[in-house]
C-alpha cells in the first residue's frame, strides 16, 4: 500500500480523537452567559477544569462523518449475522418516533396528557400477543437479555406462589443455546443443566424426557434453534414438562422465521421475549438501544413487572405500585426500568407492524427462510453444511471444509471483509466445530444473495487450493487490518489521557495513548 503524507487513502479518511482536535476556547454551541447572580451550591462548586475539548460545529460534523465512514452498516451492505436478524430499518419508523407527540413526552406527565402514548403501548402489546398467541405482555424489558430475566423471574414468582421454589431448582438449557440463557438462569438463582443435542441437531428427546421431574423449574428453548433448525418435538416436550409442573421459556431470538406463520403458544411457550430490534426492524445502533418485550401465558401474567398497563373507564393507566397491582389481582415480581420501557423503540416497531401487516409479516418470514435455504443449497457442495436442509431462517456450516488448509473460520471471515461483506456469526453455536452461522434475512435481494454465494464459493475454493497466506493477511482493504486484541486486554487503555509532556501525572501511564499512526 502506498503511503500518503496525510495518512488518508482516497475516501478512506483517518481521524484523530476528539481530544486531539481540542481548540481551547472554542465551542460548537452559542448560548448567552447567564447574568451573574447568587448561587446555591452549598460550597460544592467544581474545583478545576473538566478537560473536555473545544470544537466548532463544522469540526464536530466532520469528525463524526469521517468516523461513520469507517463502519459497515445494513444500509451499505449485507450483514449475514446468524441469530442477529440484521434486516433493513425503515426510515418511516424514525420519522414516527420523532413526532413531538411521542418524542417530547415526559414519562411523569399526568396520564390524561399521554393517552395516545399509552394507546401506542397497548396497540403494540395487542400485536405481540396476537402474533404469539399468548395473552399478556410485559413491555418494559430493555433488551432481549432483560426479557429473559423478566420471563424467568415471572416463573420464579409463580413457583414461589405454588410453594415450589425450594424444590424446583433446575433450569434446563439446550447445549446450543445463546450464552445469555444460562447467564440469566444463574442470575435468577437457578441451577443450570445442559440438555444435549441429538444427531439431527435438535434437543435430545430421550435425554429431555429422562430429565423432566419435580426438581425442574423450566426449560429454556430457542425455536428455531441456534442451528437454524425447527425443534419439531417442541409441542410434545412442552406437554411433558407442563405435565410435570414445569414452565417453558422460549427464546425469541429466532422469531423472524416464524412470525405470521407459527405462534409460540402452539409450541407450548409460557414466556418468550421478542427482540424488537431484530424481528421488528428497529435499528441496532451499533449496540443498542433495543427492546425485549416479553409475552406471558395466563399462568405467568399476574407476575409481570411494574408498571402494568391497565384500561379503565377514564382511559389507560399505568399501575406503578404493588398495592395498586394487588388490588387488581396481580402480584408483580418487581420492576426492571426507571420508567415504562423503551417507548421510542415501541413506536418504531409499531410503525413496522402497521406497514407490514399480517400478510407482509407472513411473506417476510417466508422470504427469510427461502433466502437461508437458497444460501444453504448454493454453498453445500463447497462448504460443509452441519445438517441437511431444509433449514429455517439461518444456515449453519462448520469448518470441516477447511480441514488441513491451516485456515480457520476466523481467517475465512476476515477474507469476506475484503470482498465487501460483513462476516457471518462465527464459533456459535458451540455444538459444531468452527461454526459459520449465516442469516440473510428477507430484505436481501436475489442479486445480493447470488453475489454473496459467489464470493463464498470463491473463498472456499481458494482456501482449499492452499492460499493460506492471503487468508492470514486478511483483511487488507478495510480501514484497519487485524487488531491486537491480546495487547488490548493485557494492558487495557480504556480512555484517552493527555500525553505526559502536557503535565499529566506519571501514574496515569496506564491511560497512555499510542500515536495516531506509526510507520513500521
Amino acid at each position, binding site marked *: 500500500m502506498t503511503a500518503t503524507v496525510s495518512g488518508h487513502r482516497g475516501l478512506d479518511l483517518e481521524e484523530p480523537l476528539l481530544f486531539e482536535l481540542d481548540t481551547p476556547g472554542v465551542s460548537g454551541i452559542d448560548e448567552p452567559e447567564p447574568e451573574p447572580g447568587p448561587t446555591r451550591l452549598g460550597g460544592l462548586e467544581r474545583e478545576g477544569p473538566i478537560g473536555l475539548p473545544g470544537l466548532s460545529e463544522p469540526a464536530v460534523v466532520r469528525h463524526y462523518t469521517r468516523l461513520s465512514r469507517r463502519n459497515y452498516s445494513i444500509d451499505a451492505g449485507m450483514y449475514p449475522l446468524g441469530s442477529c436478524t440484521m434486516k433493513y430499518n425503515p426510515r418511516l419508523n424514525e420519522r414516527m418516533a420523532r413526532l413531538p407527540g411521542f418524542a417530547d413526552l415526559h414519562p411523569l406527565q399526568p396520564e390524561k396528557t399521554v393517552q395516545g402514548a399509552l394507546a401506542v403501548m397497548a396497540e403494540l402489546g395487542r400485536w405481540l400477543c396476537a402474533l404469539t398467541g399468548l395473552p399478556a405482555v410485559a413491555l418494559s424489558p430493555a433488551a432481549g437479555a432483560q426479557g429473559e430475566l423478566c420471563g424467568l423471574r415471572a416463573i420464579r414468582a409463580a413457583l414461589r406462589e405454588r410453594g415450589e421454589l425450594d424444590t424446583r431448582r433446575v433450569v434446563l438449557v439446550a447445549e446450543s443455546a445463546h450464552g445469555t440463557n444460562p447467564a440469566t438462569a444463574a442470575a435468577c438463582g437457578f441451577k443450570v443443566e445442559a440438555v444435549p443435542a441429538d444427531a439431527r441437531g435438535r434437543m435430545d428427546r430421550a435425554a429431555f424426557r429422562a430429565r423432566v421431574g419435580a426438581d425442574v423449574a423450566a426449560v429454556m428453548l430457542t425455536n428455531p434453534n441456534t442451528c437454524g433448525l425447527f425443534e419439531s418435538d417442541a409441542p410434545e416436550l412442552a406437554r411433558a414438562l407442563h405435565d410435570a409442573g414445569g414452565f417453558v421459556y422460549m427464546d425469541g431470538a429466532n422469531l423472524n422465521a416464524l412470525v405470521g406463520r407459527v405462534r409460540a403458544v402452539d409450541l407450548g411457550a409460557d414466556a418468550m421475549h421478542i427482540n424488537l430490534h431484530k424481528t421488528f426492524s428497529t435499528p441496532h445502533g451499533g449496540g443498542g438501544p433495543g427492546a425485549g418485550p416479553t409475552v406471558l401465558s395466563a399462568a405467568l401474567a399476574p407476575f409481570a413487572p411494574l408498571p402494568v398497563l391497565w384500561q379503565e373507564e377514564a382511559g389507560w393507566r399505568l399501575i406503578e405500585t404493588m398495592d395498586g397491582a394487588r388490588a387488581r389481582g396481580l402480584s408483580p415480581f418487581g420492576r426492571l426500568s426507571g420508567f415504562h420501557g423503551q417507548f421510542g423503540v415501541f413506536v418504531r416497531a409499531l410503525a413496522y407492524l402497521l406497514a407490514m401487516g399480517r400478510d407482509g409479516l407472513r411473506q417476510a418470514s417466508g422470504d427469510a427462510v427461502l433466502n437461508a435455504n437458497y444460501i444453504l443449497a448454493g454453498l453445500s457442495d463447497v462448504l460443509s453444511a452441519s445438517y441437511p436442509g431444509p433449514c429455517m431462517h439461518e444456515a449453519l456450516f462448520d469448518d470441516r471444509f477447511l480441514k488441513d488448509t491451516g485456515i480457520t473460520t476466523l481467517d475465512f471471515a476476515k477474507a469476506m471483509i475484503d470482498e465487501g461483506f460483513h462476516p457471518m456469526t462465527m464459533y456459535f453455536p458451540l455444538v459444531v466445530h468452527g461454526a459459520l452461522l449465516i442469516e440473510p434475512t428477507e430484505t436481501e435481494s436475489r442479486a445480493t444473495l447470488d453475489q454473496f454465494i459467489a464470493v463464498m464459493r470463491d473463498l472456499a475454493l481458494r482456501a482449499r487450493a492452499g492460499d493460506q497466506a492471503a487468508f492470514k493477511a486478511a483483511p487488507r482493504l478495510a480501514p484497519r487490518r487485524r487488531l491486537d486484541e491480546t495487547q488490548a*486486554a493485557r494492558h487495557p487503555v480504556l480512555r484517552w489521557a493527555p500525553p505526559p509532556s502536557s503535565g499529566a501525572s506519571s501514574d496515569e501511564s496506564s491511560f497512555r495513548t499510542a500515536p495516531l499512526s506509526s510507520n513500521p
Partner: protein
Amino acid sequence: MSKVYYTEDHEWIRVEDGKEGTVGITDFAQAQMGDVVFVELPPVGTVLTQGEQAAVVESVKAASELYAPVSGTVVAVNPDLPDAPGTVNEDPQGEGWFFRLALTQPNELADLMDQDAYEVFVAEAGESAG
C-alpha cells in the same frame, strides 16, 4: 527431590519435600486458552480445600478458574504474573507458576495423575476435542 502431579482440570503441582507445592496450569491448558491476558491470584494466607477455586485466568477467548489441586494454605504467589500474564503462555510449568501451597492433606496427592498418566489423559482429550 520433587515430583509433579496433574489434575483433570489441567493444573500441575510440584511438591518439593512432601510439605509444600508450587501450582500452575499445564502447557496443554495454556495452548487451549490462547494468549493469557489476566491472572488473579489468591491472597497469601488463603486456606483452600481440594477442588476449591483458587485463581482466575483469562485469555482473549476464554475465562476459567484454577482450582486447588490439593488442600493447603497459600504461602506465596508469583509476584510477576499479574503484570506479565504472557509468562503463562511462554513458560507455563516454570516462570509461569501461580502460587505455592503449604499442604494440609498430603494424602490427597494420591488422587492426582503422574506425568505418564496425564500424557495419556491429554492424548485422549485431544482426540475427543478434534
